[in-house]
């Protein structure tokens, strides 16, 4: 594991650096897509930026509320920016809580040795799933507004639901892995939304031809 990257005497938190890189790539892709859809690229870029700011504010607010007894006597500390005082349960950092989640012990040909035991390489599973989802989305045509978005949520939550089983650090409630409950709920919501949008599209825009 490489929680920090060292360049000469400079030490950078790998997590922050990777997040920043991911944000940059996503902004770039969104700007390109915006041009294709005849939206103003700048607007999309700004939207992403506001999203990050709002996520940071929400995450900090969550942390302050959780530890109000500490902050009530030191209100100035609420505004001190620090990665460590953001609530992992809120906003932007929602997925980070289990983001560096390691796998459950397993004896498999592709197991990796981590923390003294052979484990599922869950990070690799998630990476492969993300690439797969990316390919599907890339190749799916723009049928109706929200089609790709709904499909992304559905596929992503399905992959979380499936892969969480191989994690070794799941938060549980009565033995059930909490992430899976939320994933299934979000998956069903995504399917319902897709159904609604698809019906509207079929009725208003595109007559359904049963023969195709």
């Amino acid at each position, binding site marked *: 594991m490489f*929680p920090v990257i*060292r360049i000469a005497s400079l030490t950078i938190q790998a997590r922050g650096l990777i997040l920043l890189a991911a944000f940059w790539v996503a902004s770039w892709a969104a700007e390109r897509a915006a041009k294709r859809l005849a939206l103003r690229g700048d607007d999309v870029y700004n939207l992403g930026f506001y999203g990050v700011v709002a996520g940071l504010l929400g995450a900090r607010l969550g942390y302050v509320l959780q530890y109000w007894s500490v*902050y009530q006597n030191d209100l100035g*500390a609420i505004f001190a920016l620090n990665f*460590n005082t953001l609530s992992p349960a809120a906003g932007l950092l929602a997925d980070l809580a289990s983001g560096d989640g390691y796998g459950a012990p397993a004896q498999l040909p592709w197991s990796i040795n981590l*923390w003294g035991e052979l484990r599922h390489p869950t990070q690799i599973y998630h990476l492969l799933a993300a690439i797969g989802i990316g390919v599907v989305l890339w190749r799916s045509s723009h049928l109706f507004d929200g089609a790709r978005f709904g499909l992304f949520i559905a596929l992503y939550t399905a992959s979380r639901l499936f892969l969480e*089983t191989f994690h070794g650090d*799941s938060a*549980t409630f009565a033995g059930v892995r909490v992430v*899976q409950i939320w994933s299934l709920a979000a998956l069903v919501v995504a399917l319902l939304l897709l159904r609604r949008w698809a019906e509207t599209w079929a009725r208003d825009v595109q007559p359904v031809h049963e023969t195709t």
Partner: protein
Amino acid sequence: MWVRAFIDPRRWNALLIGIITLGIVWILASRIEVSASGPSALPNPQIGFAAPDFTLDTLDGGTITLSELRGQPVLINLWASWCPPCRAEMPALDTVYRKYREAGFVVLAVNTTFQDSEADARAFAQNLGLTFPILLDRDGAASRRYQLQALPTSFFVGRDGTIRDIVIGGPMSEALIASRVEGLLVEESQ
């Protein structure tokens, strides 16, 4: 085409019911025993694992063994006197320590003596009037066991000896330290 499954009512019902059923079956199949989700027996410098044990001399001539502090929340802070962020967070550490000491909270400030000097560490601690014990990692064994990569690094250890949180880099603010300590103190001792 995948959209068909969302428009055709029969296929839609099959899809929705199928996915919900599959999901619930998978969730139930991947439940874990509550006992298995407890602290791992393996010591590792990682959240959720047992804090690796060490016995080190203190600046004032005693020795401290981490495992003997079981039942109390512990903050292990690895530092060096030449490291500016380490120096900067020491007053905040001391304030939080004095505030929660009565409740059983312990700070172990492990000086990385193998890359520092005992005299500098002593001068620094006396200068600031630090009240918590300063431990001396003379041969670097404890630092290696905690896979120290950057100074300062802090490990928040729960009453059961499990690492609850790790903060790499600093300086940590008083609010950050205090909030983590409050989280450790509310845990029930085993």
